[in-house]
């Protein structure tokens, strides 16, 4: 099959199977996304993060935890032989630590998204669809969670369960679902009385079927956009917890914890804290650009 005919097959007005229809829809979205070069930069950054995390063992030249010679290899500046980003106070190669730290960052981001998105969607669509006391109850619970300062709740949670990256993730997840619930509820309110939902009711569809099959797909795109845009904040919160010593524990190469460790030498050995800071900055920027691009193609209201 040539490239052109595959493209025509995807863009066909008369798809012949479920698969072709779905792939065609995905391909159209991709075409819209591809024309936004900033979003492509974001996508490239996020893909790079994923690849680096997957192949950390191959990419990193040194062990991220065990350092070199403490007499001769401490605080080597960037671009010293073999240490492209320099070494820290325990003679560990900063580049290797950042590469391995990408795994922690990716784990935080993925787990928070996997935990918080379904909770937010479920609470929001249920509240919006059923209305009345269900709505009042669920949204007041949401308000309570929304009223907690995120970092403080995470602190309390970590203090109760003990420090560690897993507890930090749970703490971030339980504080980040309320905005998704609100968003999903608002979207649900706008579509719950529309004719296509009424039509589904008239076919005898159960509430669960309507919520899952009809309302959720329409809320999903705006929630995905919001989650992607929040990724930067999640990374920063995780880094903040690491910085405070409540997230990843030493010697784990978590970027926030690395900044905290480098803080003591900030004046004389600036690179120890700066390099992981740059990594956080680039990845956060990548997620923001990706989220913006996704909004342009997925949000039906923003579509030209």
């Amino acid at each position, binding site marked *: 099959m040539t490239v052109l005919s595959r493209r025509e097959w995807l863009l066909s*007005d*008369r*798809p*012949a*199977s*479920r698969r*072709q*229809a779905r792939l065609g*829809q995905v391909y159209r979205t991709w075409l819209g996304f591809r024309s936004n070069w900033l979003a492509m930069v974001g996508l490239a950054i996020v893909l790079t993060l994923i690849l680096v995390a997957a192949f950390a063992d191959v990419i990193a030249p040194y062990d991220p935890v065990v350092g070199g010679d403490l007499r001769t290899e401490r605080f080597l500046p960037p671009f010293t032989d073999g240490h492209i980003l320099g070494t820290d106070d325990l003679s560990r190669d900063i580049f290797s630590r950042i590469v391995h730290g990408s795994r922690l960052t990716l784990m935080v981001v993925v787990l928070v998204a996997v935990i918080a998105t379904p909770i937010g969607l479920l609470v929001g669509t249920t509240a919006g669809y059923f209305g009345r006391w269900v709505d009042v109850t669920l949204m007041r619970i949401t308000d309570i969670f929304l009223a907690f300062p995120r970092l403080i709740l995470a602190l309390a949670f970590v203090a109760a369960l003990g420090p560690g990256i897993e507890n930090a993730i749970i703490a971030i997840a339980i504080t980040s679902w309320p905005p998704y619930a609100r968003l999903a509820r608002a979207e649900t309110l706008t579509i719950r009385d*529309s*004719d*296509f939902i*009424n*039509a*589904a*009711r*008239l*076919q*005898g*569809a*159960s509430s669960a*079927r309507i919520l899952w*099959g*009809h309302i959720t*797909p*329409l809320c999903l795109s705006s929630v995905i956009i919001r989650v992607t845009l929040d990724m930067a904040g999640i990374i920063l919160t995780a880094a903040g917890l690491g910085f405070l010593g409540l997230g990843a524990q030493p010697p784990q190469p978590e970027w926030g914890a690395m900044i905290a460790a480098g803080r003591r030498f900030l004046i004389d050995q600036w690179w120890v804290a700066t390099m992981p800071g740059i990594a956080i900055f680039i990845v956060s920027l990548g997620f923001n650009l990706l989220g913006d691009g996704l909004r342009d193609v997925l949000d*039906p209201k923003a579509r030209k």
Partner: protein
Amino acid sequence: MGALMLSVEALDVTFRRGDDTVRAVRGVSFDVAEGESFGIVGESGSGKSTVLRAICGLAPTSGGLIRLRDETLRTPRSAAFYREVQMVFQDPYASLHPRHTIDKVLSEPLAIHGFDRREERIEQALSDVGLGPDFRFRYPHQLSGGQRQRVAVARALILEPEMLLLDEPTSALDASIQAEVLNLLDRLRTERGLTYVMVSHDLAVVAHMCDRLVVMQHGLAVEELTREALAAHRATTDYTKKLLSASEGYTQAEAP
């Protein structure tokens, strides 16, 4: 006139929002026989669509009785009710889920009610409304208004109901396609012996489609007429006469 299919008795629908109450339907009664095509006519806000919505359970009834074949309908309606009564909505641009292919739209009711031979039924339903099989995997945004309304009709008919509630099925379509859809509905009714309850503000459409009709104004049933009486201008109330002459005036002004 065949056996009694639907009977609406002193139907009241009241919408409340805070202290605001709107009595959208006030004591409307009518009977529809099996195989009959019954029209409800009135201007915007007369409560005619609300009557339809009350019949299928989408609007809350605050008084009166609705009977389907001598059985009083309960809220919420049973699954069996939806296999007997289906509705076609006014706006085909709003009544199809924007992210569902036609295939999904048609297969969902079959899945809900556990029908067999789904592939066949879907293809049959599409060809019944004059759409070819190559429409099956399209999304609604790839269809025109008339094609969408055909899909909506196919969706209503795929459960093989005996009665269709038609809520101004052609008013969102342009004139040439209106006739197409009306003829389709007419043909399907004769082929399958369906009972129609059709709401419209257009007397010409109702006169074409319906055997009998009721005229509504401000939530009240003003007058019941047969098609013959309508054609002969034998309206007894002032409002119906006004409505009739308004539709005449319109056609005369239209003619060159």
